[in-house]
């Protein structure tokens, strides 16, 4: 780090978005990414896969946000999507007790499959509908605490709490990545991608598939 100075490293994180259909996962992430939308993407303006570039305390962070299908019938496909994730955002609707239950199931599964190395965020969305709240703040926050997750309240509609959620998540993922780096003894030569696909790359990572093969097939 000393030689390259701050900012010479780029963290690439994969964040998976889980939650029942209709809880507003898609609007949440769209809201977050819409301002600086990366127009290089092939599937422009689709919300299944989004990226965001951040600069946090002088370090560049590339977020890749993977949406999943929330319908019950697709539940079993979860592992295909969340493997190698650095973070997971578990969204429920504060007016829907069921959706909170689903989040609990996801947490259990993630902890079982990925252990403690994945940073979990539990997100109560739709706080603009506070009057119809069915999941109490205490219950939700208490639960999050008990499983080592952070809890957030957001409203995609009012654009509330979203920046904070992602920023916080990034910081936590960076901490995990840095701890991992230290574990590997800072061996510069062994800068291979760490476990779970944390990639520390010098200089800008390539825009992978997007840059090369933009298609606009008609």
């Amino acid at each position, binding site marked *: 780090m000393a030689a*390259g*100075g701050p*900012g*010479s490293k780029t963290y*690439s994180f*994969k964040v998976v*978005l889980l939650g029942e*259909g209709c809880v507003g*996962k*898609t609007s949440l*992430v*769209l809201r977050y990414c819409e301002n600086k939308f990366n127009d290089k*993407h*092939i*599937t422009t*303006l*689709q*919300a*299944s*896969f989004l*990226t965001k570039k951040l600069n946090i305390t002088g370090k560049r962070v590339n977020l*890749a946000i*993977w*949406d*999943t*299908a*929330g*319908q*019950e*019938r*697709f*539940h*079993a*496909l979860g*592992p*295909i*999507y969340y*493997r*190698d994730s650095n973070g997971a955002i578990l969204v429920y609707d504060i007016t829907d007790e069921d959706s909170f239950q689903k989040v609990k199931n996801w947490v259990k599964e993630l902890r079982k499959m990925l252990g403690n190395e994945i940073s979990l965020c539990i997100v109560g969305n739709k706080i603009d509908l506070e009057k119809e709240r069915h999941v109490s703040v205490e219950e939700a926050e208490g639960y999050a605490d008990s499983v080592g997750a952070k809890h957030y309240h957001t409203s995609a509609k009012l654009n509330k709490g979203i920046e904070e959620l992602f920023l916080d998540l990034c910081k936590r993922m960076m901490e995990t990545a840095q701890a991992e780096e230290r574990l590997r003894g800072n061996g510069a030569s062994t800068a*291979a*991608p760490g*476990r779970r*696909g944390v*990639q520390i790359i010098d*200089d*800008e*990572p*390539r*825009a*992978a*598939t*997007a*840059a*090369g*093969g*933009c*298609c*606009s*097939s*008609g």
Partner: protein
Amino acid sequence: MQEDPVYDYPDPHPVGEKRVCPQRGSLKSISVLDRLLLTYPVWLQLSINSATALHILQREPPGTFLVRKSNTSQKKMLCVRLADESVPSFVNGLPITPPPAFSLETSAISFPDLCRLIAFYCVSRDVLPFTLELPEAIAKASSHKQLESISHMGVEFWSSQLNFRGPRNGPPPLRTRSPSELDMGAGQGALCFINPLFLQDHPAMHKRHHFKRSVKVRVSTENTSSLSPPVSPPPPPPLLAKAKVKGKNLQHLESSSSLSSLDEAEEGPERPPLTRGTSNPTVASLCLPRQSASALRKMSAAFVSFFVPGKRVARLVEDLSRDRRMAFGTLVQDFLRQQREVLKPQFLTSSVELLQGMRIFISQAKVFLLELPEDEKGSSTKALINMFMVADQTLEKALFRCVLKPLKRQIDEALHVLHERDGCSKRIAESMQRARKASPCDLFGVQVTVPDTQGIDKLRRKMSLVRRAYSPIDKLHLLLQICKLIYKAMKNNAEFGADDFLPALSYVIVQCNMPELSVEVEYMMELLDTSWLTGEGGYYLTSVYASLSFIQSLPEAVAPTALTQEVRESLKNWSHRRRTDNKSHKDLLQQVVFQDGECSLMKTLQWKAGTSAETLAQLCAVKFGVNQPEEYSLYWRRDGELEPLPPTAYIQDLQSLGTTSAPFIYQCSGPDMKSRKLTRGGALDLSAEAS
């Protein structure tokens, strides 16, 4: 500007104050691009600081430039000498944006590589106060030899006698060369590429929108150096003038031209080595409207040369890979020969194993290529790699071409046989059939508009293109095109998440009824480097994989179920492999020259990480068929001396001692051991054999 409308110059200046153009006369055969390429050690000074840059440029005429790397921003900076009276300084440093597209930060025009960027600013100002000037010695050099000797001086050139400078206090050359100076239609002379594919929408572009309207295209037709790009016949400019250069078409074009593996896959695997200067790249024009296809094909042939950095590297690597006199060639050819055996049906075990073997080899070959000793012709590859800051991706593509392309037919057949054997093909085909019967829209809970019959036909055609490509990267691009078409069909301008996309994708897969898709997914997942799998391509590949798993888990999936045990297992293995992937790279591909009397033989052996040199020596004994292994030992070159390799040495010991990748010598260790003067592998006339 009354000249041919194809040539559009953004900075028209009176042709009156013309100087003798360095590009004329006998010199015209060396293009600016080649001059830049050959002399980059002079102008590319990444390690110098700004003070040194100032010091060097101080004595140079305006327009002289250097590229250095800023310590603070870590960006490359184009440092241009301005007129003496310029404020705040007589040198202007402009940050260059990093790959994939190089551009000056204030400009809207970007280039596929640094050299192209510089070459462009040598003929056109764009955002600069005036064009860049090559040092006179470089601009006037009349042969490659001269340029090379300049190049050897590196930074010393600037202070040398060779660097004679023009009048220092003259007016800044606020002029550009006129079209007539640049090129007189013979396809020679100064060279400038503007790649319209890299033009971006940008306010600055509107000011210079005439740039966009007519695009200047010059294709080098000379074949002067080993670094020359593969030459394609210069396209007739009028064609380009007529062709509408619109973003959309170009994107289209790009998507097709980058999928070169489609066409090439159809060539015979025994295609003779490419001869530079005669190749005529043709490009598939996929899914283009018929009437424009031919025009675009011609046009795309011209555009192929825009992808030169990648193409050049690909060609170089390919040539290297075919040349058995070179270590790399031996390595690749041996592997191909071995694979042709291994891929025979009777030897096949599992598809994953097969693909993994390929992947490991490709990774190792990449490392090997990057570590080629300078005199192994690798120097030119290295120069290119430095020059273009070639992305790992480019090398990866080049290696796919060397390894997967010649084996395409056999791999396909092998995978087919294997999946017939393990019943996968049958299972997925049956699942798809079942799903189709059971009204797929309900089955997947599709809530959006899905492609109609025509749309499905189109998608099916795309899927068969996926099958035809040999390169997993091309396959992935096609897969993304398929996903895009599905989104397009969803209409109503909403922004869709996975809740809507996955059902639609599953529907399309079932309707297209192409069970072979699962083989393609496996191929991509196993062969693509991890870096590809974390981006957009990785996401959609994952979605297709998920969708195929879902289809296979039907009909039980009508009720919520878990993944089939098989899928879980394969996922686990896959993840595990990916994690250990990097460790396996640490094995070393080591060349060993066997010296026995007058006989010498070279093989490339795999020195496994964690095993000692003794183990390697044992392997040598086996591979070279030595009867008394105790009498033979391994030797290596250290500081020019041949020394015995300590039997207890490991790969990492060697690396810490800073060895080169020169071959080891395996020879008799008796007292009569002749310490021959050994040359490096490349120079030896060796009859290398498969190991």
